[in-house]
């Protein structure tokens, strides 16, 4: 129960618990799917790979999906936690400052322009989508620099909302100009898909995600303090300007990487932090790593359901996260009070 002061012990318990959950989910998820495969056949070396359908399904179709789901889920959950603390707003999401809107705009531009090139194994849509997210981050960051004393969170919030609105409007305009097929492709992208089929896009997304994690590692305690208010944090010894910049850049890179990889499955970024807080309390030193682990597990499970519930066809994973996340969150909320 939250409230006791032994943060070391609570941290160990939290990491062990969520770590075990994530490990179990990662182990079991590739074994489950719309095609029935046998564990023994998957690892049977005597069958040549080209003839071993079970192994192909496991290693080519499912395993990359599980890894992608882990990265996307962790990335969005982490950025959700950081944005909620940075903006001192429990309803903030990875999209509040427009990063996901920029990513969506990038994807739409590629799909509408019928661009088709590949860089180091990464196809055009993830590339332009990431470029879009970096673009919107740059705009928000420039906005924050324009204010003396870094980023007053109200200015950041309002500016980010304005930029998000602008980028969303630009996206709608692109859709308006596009023909039916292009619009359809865009809608498909917006519903999210983790069916990556190979590791190249995952590895590519790990670069910005890794950079983001370097920032995330420095943040937990200072996020606690910043959530009391900028003045209060400063008075307790926090370099608020520097912290807010690190938080903004890390959370935006993480969002950009996740959305480019799996599409804007944004609900995870709002609800996973809250779910985790209901279990571990408000201390960000627990909430941050727990959210990464739980976000990964949650999205892996949602993707599993998405690809099995109406087999052989699939449901978009974004729908499942909302259908499951909403009621689950309500249950956690009412159980605790």
């Amino acid at each position, binding site marked *: 129960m*939250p*409230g*006791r*002061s032994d*943060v*070391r012990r609570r*941290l160990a318990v939290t990491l062990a618990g969520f770590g075990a959950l994530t490990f179990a989910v990662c182990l079991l998820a590739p074994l489950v799917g719309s095609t029935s495969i046998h564990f023994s056949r998957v690892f049977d070396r005597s069958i040549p790979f080209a003839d071993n359908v079970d192994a192909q399904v496991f290693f080519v179709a499912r395993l990359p999906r599980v890894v992608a789901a882990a990265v996307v889920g962790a990335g969005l959950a982490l950025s959700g936690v950081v944005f*909620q*603390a940075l903006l*001192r*707003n*429990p309803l903030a999401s990875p999209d509040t400052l427009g990063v996901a809107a920029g990513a969506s705009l990038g994807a739409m531009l590629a799909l509408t322009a019928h661009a088709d090139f590949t860089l180091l194994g990464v196809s055009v849509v993830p590339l332009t989508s990431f470029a879009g997210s970096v673009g919107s981050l740059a705009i928000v960051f420039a906005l924050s620099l324009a204010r*003396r004393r870094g980023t007053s969170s109200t200015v950041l919030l309002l500016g980010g909302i304005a930029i998000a609105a602008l980028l969303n409007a630009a996206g709608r305009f692109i859709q308006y100009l596009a023909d039916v097929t292009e619009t359809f492709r865009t809608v498909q992208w917006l519903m999210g898909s983790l069916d990556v089929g190979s590791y190249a896009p995952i590895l590519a997304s790990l670069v910005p995600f890794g950079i983001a994690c370097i920032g995330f590692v*420095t*943040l*937990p*305690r*200072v996020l*606690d*303090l910043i*959530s*009391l*208010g900028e*003045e*209060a944090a*400063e*008075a*307790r*010894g*926090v*370099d608020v300007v520097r912290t807010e910049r690190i938080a903004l850049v890390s959370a935006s890179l993480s969002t950009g990487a996740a959305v480019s990889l799996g599409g804007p499955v944004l609900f995870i970024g709002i609800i996973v932090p809250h779910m985790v*807080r209901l279990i571990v*309390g*408000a*201390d960000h*030193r627990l909430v941050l790593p727990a959210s990464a682990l739980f976000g990964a597990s949650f999205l892996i499970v949602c993707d599993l359901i998405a690809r099995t519930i109406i087999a052989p066809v699939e449901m978009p994973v974004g729908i499942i996260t909302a259908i499951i996340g909403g009621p689950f969150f309500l249950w956690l909320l009412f159980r605790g009070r």
Partner: protein
Amino acid sequence: MLLDARGLSFAYRRGAQVLDDVSLSVPRGSIVGLIGPNGSGKTTLIRLLNGTLSPARGSVALDGVPLATLSRRDLARRIAVVSQETHVTFDFTALEIVLMGRYAHLGAFALEGPDDVSIARKALSATGTTALEGRQFATLSGGEKQRVVIASALAQASDILLLDEPTTALDVGFQFEIASLLARLNRDRGTTMVVSTHDLNLAATLCTELVLIKAGRVLAQGATGDVLTAANIRRLYGVDADVTFHPRAGHLTVVPLARTE
């Protein structure tokens, strides 16, 4: 002198001059009150005194050390601030709020040890909030919240405590509670304090010295009895008031009578 401010001048970017040539001194173990109308620059002065803002001209020194030479964490180890209201976004418990005061000593990566917890618990006990340790901060009453925030500032183990209108948002019962607490802390622990307030009666009961600020300048400063006069109140607030020694209260009281401007 513990805290020494000389010739402070400050203006926000593209704004009017907020403070002009303000000097004040805070003797060790005293409680200095900052009195002034809304917009006189009290909050800005508090921020200059704790090093959050840098003055355009002038300097602040703590125990002879200029604040500008100290890092943010160094500053936090020596100066703690209690603000008017604390909005907590997430469901921290009272103890967690108090433990946040240890950041200046621990930094971003060290986890609190048993020493830090004991310091926090002592701070809670000093403010009479031990029973609230496990309670959610957001569910506490106004007075309880302020006491926990003061405990958090105490946990910083600083030399001096700056309080920016600590009782303005509280009802008279809680005001009394906080005032007594601050007086007791000063008496029992020798905590030096600077309190900015609107409440002239609070200033009268609590503060040994007063600094009157009007429109960014020092109007008068000195011992409470010398400075808290009807004439000064008229110049400061444009209000005719009766300032008398109240035998039962044991200190000066101020009763406003009429507006003069």
